[in-house]
């Protein structure tokens, strides 16, 4: 299990590739990866930037718990989860969920499940900076957006 928080921009593909160096890739036929990035629009408004607040200590614990529960539901998987915190610019990576498995359905299902649980359970809060300089807290993670 790997869970990491980044307070600076990170390249998700480097994180994935680095993690694979330590894995028995000849056993892991499937890798399912999701990368979420900051968009420059939300709810029909232009977004200039974002601050992502977290709860140091609990955030890491929650991510580790979510990954541990996925690994217990799909025992064959290996996971890497990374999340950005702090001040964020459009196009920056917010979240990376990578799951390796011998078989593709386990990798895909676990990747989707970890992402959905992270979005609803891990303590992160987004505050957006709009083009007129005002700020607003994002109130909801709507499904699938």
């Amino acid at each position, binding site marked *: 299990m790997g869970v990491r928080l980044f307070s600076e921009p990170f390249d998700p593909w480097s994180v994935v590739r680095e993690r694979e160096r330590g894995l028995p890739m000849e056993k892991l036929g499937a890798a399912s990866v999701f990368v979420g990035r900051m968009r420059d629009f939300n709810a029909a408004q232009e977004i200039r930037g974002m601050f992502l607040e977290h709860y140091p*200590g609990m955030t890491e614990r929650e991510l580790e718990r979510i990954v541990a529960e996925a690994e217990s539901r799909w025992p064959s998987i290996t996971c890497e989860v990374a999340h950005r915190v702090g001040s964020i610019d459009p196009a920056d990576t*917010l979240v990376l969920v990578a799951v390796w498995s011998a078989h593709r359905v386990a990798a895909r299902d676990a990747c989707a499940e970890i992402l959905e649980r992270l979005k609803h*359970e891990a303590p992160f809060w987004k505050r957006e900076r709009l083009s007129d300089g005002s700020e607003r807290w994002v109130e909801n993670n709507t499904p699938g957006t």
Partner: protein
Amino acid sequence: MTINVQYFARLREDLGRDGDQVAATEGIDTVADLWRHLHREAPPPRLMVAVNQSHARLDSAIADGDEVAFFPPVTGG
């Protein structure tokens, strides 16, 4: 000993502070009791809570020395 209370995100800004320290006293048995003791009103709708950095509920029991956090619905990912 005390109960260490933390606030996050919009709730922190609305309250104007990061947290509170509360002496554990009689009548503060649950998370909801703690909120009412601190804010003199019922917990607002959609309030989320953690006790010792694990998700909890308004009727979760609290004890001397606990870390209790209140926050709005999470929006990460």
